[in-house]
């Protein structure tokens, strides 16, 4: 009887416990993290909204198969550390995922509670347990497994590489992780800004992976310093996982794009995040602090760039997007935060050229108004320019954030690796197996620009497949051949 009453009470709770956040106008001028995270009472209250379904559907939405009701149940009981260990059974980067996963289109969209109100705030709870564990300083390192004597090399220390490394080391293999930049974390370090994912959190998660026994080599550009063939044939590695992201910025190909003050989003964010240019001159890397900034695009990277520009002191930041807000690929929370902070959205607008101040600096951008036509191959309505609707906007910084392409630096050194016509690696979805024996691939270099968690999912699948491969060294990619 008591239980029934409790359930009824829970059903009434249609609204999730909100995470407190920095005031929008204050945070728009600092780089501190936007939400504060739950305190234990808030976490327990939110955990009580979970129905503990017998057949939980939320789990199906998680690319790394976290036992969601399991860890939420432990939070309910106040067993926060145990809850964190439960998450870590499947996810080596919970503090990151709790912050940057698009939960609203994954686990939370499948949550039963969500049918009659807000779904359980799974992401917020994941973040809570990870932060709790870190604060308590009781990070549990699982026991070292029996060594298998097999060696695996992973190229790229982004979310996919880190996940794959964690899984393989726990299976007893020796793992070396190569990173081209001078800091590990890939997009978590160079791309996602401090206020959305504090870098100490990434460092903490990487530290955990190192404690598991993964050897991390920084500043090693594979394809230049070593080739994959050398690693496999001369250095004694048994398998290789390529998870290098899709780091080659796309520009719009409009006049004036090489003027000073026009940055690719990759450059703008790398300067700000990886190089900490927002702390110039304490840090040596400079960045132009624009008064009037225009960012072009509608994804997470565009939102991040706009919000970084604002925090660097811009008076006006325009987000210029050729479709309408409904078509924006960015995470809803990011769009909401951008609005709150005062980013001005110029929708159904497309740039046509940048304007030179006569000295090689950008001083404006000419745009054209768009209208939506029939849906295109992406299913979104195609934007069409409206003739004669050109107008100019005064800017001193322009940031194209239109996505990335495949960076060929590594793949062009692997002649027997099959690529698709856009330069991405062709790999089996379930295993990451490629046309080159012993080489697995996953993440953005296979799928094109996607999310942190999907790269982690690919890392997990590849680790599983590599484990199998190392037992038999059998390479059958007949499915792949069909796909090609």
């Amino acid at each position, binding site marked *: 009887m008591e239980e029934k009453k409790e359930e009824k009470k829970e059903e009434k709770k249609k609204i999730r416990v909100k995470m407190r956040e920095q005031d929008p106008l204050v945070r728009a001028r600092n780089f501190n993290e936007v939400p504060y995270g739950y305190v234990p009472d808030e976490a327990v209250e939110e955990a009580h909204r979970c129905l503990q379904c017998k057949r939980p559907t939320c789990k199906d939405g998680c690319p790394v198969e976290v036992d969601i009701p399991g860890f939420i149940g432990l939070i309910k009981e106040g067993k926060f550390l145990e809850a964190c260990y439960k998450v870590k059974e499947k996810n080596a980067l919970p503090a990151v995922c709790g912050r940057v996963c698009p939960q609203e289109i994954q686990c939370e969209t499948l949550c039963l509670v969500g049918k009659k109100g807000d779904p359980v705030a799974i992401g917020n709870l994941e973040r809570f347990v990870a932060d709790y564990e870190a604060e308590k300083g009781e990070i549990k390192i699982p026991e070292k497994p029996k060594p298998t004597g097999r060696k695996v090399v992973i190229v790229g220390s982004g979310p996919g590489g880190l996940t794959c490394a964690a899984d393989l080391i726990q299976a007893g293999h020796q793992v070396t992780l190569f990173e*081209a*930049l*001078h800091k590990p974390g890939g997009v978590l370090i*160079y791309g996602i800004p401090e206020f959305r994912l504090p870098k100490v959190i990434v460092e903490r998660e990487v530290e955990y992976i190192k404690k598991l026994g993964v050897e991390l080599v*920084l*500043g*090693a*550009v594979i394809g*230049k*310093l*070593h080739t994959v063939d050398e690693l496999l044939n001369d250095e004694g590695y048994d398998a290789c996982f390529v998870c290098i992201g899709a*780091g*080659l*910025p796309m*520009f719009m190909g409009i006049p004036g*794009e*090489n003027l*000073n*003050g026009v*940055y*690719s989003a*990759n*450059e703008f964010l*790398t*300067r700000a995040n990886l*190089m*900490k240019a927002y702390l*110039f*001159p*304490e*840090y*040596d*890397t*400079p960045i*132009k602090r624009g008064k009037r900034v225009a960012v072009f695009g509608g994804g997470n990277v565009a939102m991040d760039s706009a919000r970084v520009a604002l925090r660097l002191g811009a008076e006006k930041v325009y987000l210029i997007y050729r479709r309408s807000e409904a078509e924006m690929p960015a995470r809803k929370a990011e769009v909401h935060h951008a609005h709150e902070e005062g980013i001005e959205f110029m929708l159904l607008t497309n740039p046509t050229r940048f304007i030179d101040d006569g*000295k*090689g600096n950008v001083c404006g951008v000419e745009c054209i108004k768009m209208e939506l036509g029939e849906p295109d191959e992406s299913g979104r309505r195609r934007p069409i320019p409206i003739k004669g609707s050109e107008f100019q906007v005064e800017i001193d910084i322009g940031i194209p954030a239109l996505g990335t392409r495949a*960076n*060929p*630096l590594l793949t062009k050194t692997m002649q027997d690796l099959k690529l698709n016509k856009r330069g991405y690696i062709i790999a089996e979805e379930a295993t990451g197996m490629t046309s080159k024996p012993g080489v697995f691939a996953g993440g953005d270099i296979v799928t094109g620009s996607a999310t942190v968690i999907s790269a982690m999912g690919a890392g997990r699948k590849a680790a599983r497949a590599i484990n199998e491969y190392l037992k038999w060294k059998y390479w059958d990619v007949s499915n792949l051949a069909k796909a090609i």
Partner: protein
Amino acid sequence: MFKILKKEELSDVVTLFEIDAKHIAKKAQAGNFFVLRIHEEGERIPLTIADFDRDRGTITTVFQKVGKTTYHMGILNEGDYISDLIGPLGIPSHIENFGKVVCVGGGVGIAPVYPITKGLKEAGNTIISIIGARTRNLLFWEEKMRKVSDELIITTDDGSYGRKAVVTVPLDELLNKDKDIKLVVAIGPAIMMKFVCKTTEKYNIKTIVSLNSIMVDATGMCGACRVEVGGETKFACVDGPEFDGHKVDFDLLMKRQIMYLDEEKIAMERYREKMGGVI
């Protein structure tokens, strides 16, 4: 961490480091560069691999003190460490037997032109080298260049050593009298490379230049190093650094090189203050 094994002051403002970097040395080729970051707060700057020794496992680089990072490098000594060294990067020089080649090095550009000259010489080319600087004490590697050249011409702007001229003067004379010259390789300040190309264009002699744009990651990820070559945007870091000089938009290169002039001044002044007048 990478140890500085040897430091040599080549002139008042030009310094040489030989750095312990076994893996990079193993793969280095003429025309490659690397990226360096001296400490945790440091910026990433590209520098050319001016020489390498695979047996010793070292690379040699030559830099001119122009801003905070390079002045800071100038106070480092043998036995000190550099936080990060990333390379070898860029597409190596195309080395083959062209016949007769003129190699031009201007100022600190003498260092990067050396390994290419050496490579071309070893490939059987006849080499005429021209090295030039503003004044005598900015010149270096005269003997090193002489060893890999069949003929060496030296110029200074002020006539303090060698011929009083800019490098394009003897270059023009050579091209005018010697019709066997098949290729010119020129590395130096952008303005010098621009005028070398203007000179060689008259004679329709293919000219290779190495572009020193501003870079961040130097692996093609950011596009800071964008240059226009034949009307197309290229990334100096992965598509270059060497390009057909006749197709390069040098004016754009020069504008982009001074993008952070104000910030560089701020950083330098702050550094001078911190060092209490030592620099």
